[in-house]
């Protein structure tokens, strides 16, 4: 069957939601089994004693993009039907920067804090409440203060392939090279800073 199935087969919205639950289930499972219920482990990447976050994210990206590339190149996936985030470069950069600061203070990101909160961590619950507050601040302040902040630096290209005209697989190869080069490096740092 040619994916994305929801769009190609025209599933109903209800079916989509059932699949959302199933995917979420495995997502939650993966996050928990990665050890992301612990703020200590998560914050480790910024305090140089545990690079699990970095490794998991990069490895997941490499694996997922390889699969996406493979399936779309044999015609089992319509890549253009996937939903892409619109590219607001400045907003992404600013947001990422602030996000990093918040991450290093709170020790969570929204997804992992939800996971951790479910397992009974009060700090995660506090963080999660904080996320609600942060979003509420944005939402309520949006019409007056923040309007447009999330739409800075718009470019038409939705992917780097479009942007630079490089084939997908080359980009994946670059990512793999980054992985191969950096993983031993971070392992060394990790060992040095082990608590």
């Amino acid at each position, binding site marked *: 069957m040619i994916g994305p199935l929801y769009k190609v087969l025209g599933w109903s919205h209800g079916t989509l939601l059932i699949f959302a639950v199933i995917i979420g289930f495995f*997502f939650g499972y993966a996050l928990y089994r990665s050890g992301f219920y612990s703020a200590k482990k998560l914050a480790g990447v910024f305090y140089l004693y545990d690079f699990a976050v970095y490794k998991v994210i990069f490895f997941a990206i490499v*694996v997922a993009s390889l699969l996406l590339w493979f399936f779309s190149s044999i015609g089992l996936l319509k890549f253009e039907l996937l939903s892409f985030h619109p590219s607001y470069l400045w907003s992404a950069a600013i947001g990422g920067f602030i996000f*990093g*600061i918040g991450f290093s203070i709170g020790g969570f990101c929204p997804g992992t804090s939800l996971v951790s909160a479910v397992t009974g961590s009060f*700090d995660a619950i506090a963080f999660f409440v904080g996320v609600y507050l942060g979003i509420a601040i944005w939402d309520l302040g949006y019409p007056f203060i*923040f309007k447009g902040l*999330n739409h800075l630096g718009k470019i038409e290209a939705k992917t780097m392939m479009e942007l630079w005209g490089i084939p997908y697989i080359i980009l994946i190869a670059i990512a793999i090279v980054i992985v191969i080069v950096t993983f031993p490096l971070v392992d060394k740092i990790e060992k040095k800073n082990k608590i």
Partner: protein
Amino acid sequence: MRNELLEKYLPLTPEEKEELKSKKIKKHDVATVFLHWFNMLVWLTELITGAALIVSLNYAFMPKFFTKIVSDIYGTRGNIIRTHIFVGVLWAIVLTLYALFGWRRYLKPTLKEIFGITKDDIGWLKAKFEEVVLGKKVHYPPQDAYNGGQKLFAQVVALMVPVIIITGFIMAFHLLSPSLIRWAIIIHFGAVGLVVMGLSVHIYMALLYPPEQEGFFGMIHGYVSEYFAYHHHYKFWRKKKKGLDKPEELPPKKDLPPIKAGIFLGIVLFFSFYLTGFGLGSSGFVQRTLVAILGAFAPESVKNHSYMGHYWGVYPLWNFLVFMGLGVIAGTLFAMFLAHHKFRFRIERGEKINDFQRLVYAVIGGIIVGFATRVAGGCTSSMALSGGSVFSPGGWLFMIFLFIGGYLGAFFFRRLWK
């Protein structure tokens, strides 16, 4: 205390009564307590919304003003049915998880108990009938953890709940053929009707019938006095006293190594794309639920809000990411269960700060992160993971700046974690 008490149900002496009254005995697990009250909330919502949905002249059983009030609360009638389905799906998920993971520990013993009808149960029912209807003074036979009446009600519930869930799914997601939906709707209705009949007795007994009052509180904290157990559930009390049940515990598992976890996460991400065309995400969950909460107070201003209006749609919770969030919760619990980790409340912190400081910093971090997700348009899951794998320029930029910001933050706040 007399040893015969363990052998036979006998009247107590006042001393014994005092002694038993002072001791507590555990009657319900945390899981059971949670499930009971969760069920109560679900039933309350589902009954109200469900009853408000059936307004047709041919089938309605609630007066018109009721429907009107409920419709006004929910804004539109579409929201009623959406709430009904949302809560129902949530309920089904929780019950399924309970059934899957609690099978050995909770469900199987419970089912065994409620379907194991003895002479004493029938005797109890008979006695109750004689007492209530005929006004006789009666003597109740000794009972298990649940008495005959409770067992009867539990049986009805245990049989009807799967029926309600299955028929509900058939209707909510238009499964199979229309003619099946036609039958599903009346079976759904009939099954709920049966449960409701038991429910009104159940509520009366628990809330208003004085002798059972202790049972009510037992369902809140899980403990009852030994006196109550002896008096109302003699067989259960005897079993407890003999120390019959003690589940063994398995050693907790270690976390997966990052590479394995990464591969697993990558596959999940791919399937998300392959199945639905959308990537993973979690800040959307917060955004949508927040909009739903705010919308409950001021639907009009949220709907017309320049930012939140976009997330309102018809009903903010009727969304991919919201349902994914539910899945994440379920998946986390499942993973915890499989890894033999115990649920425990805790606070993780660096050594140089105390618990309170940690919580404050967590909230601050949360606020910053929450705000940042809105600026960037997503969080680590949606921007970095999903965007990264399709090589979205924004996604990679977000990731790079996340690490820059993170290391900068770590430089200033290293006190928190060292």
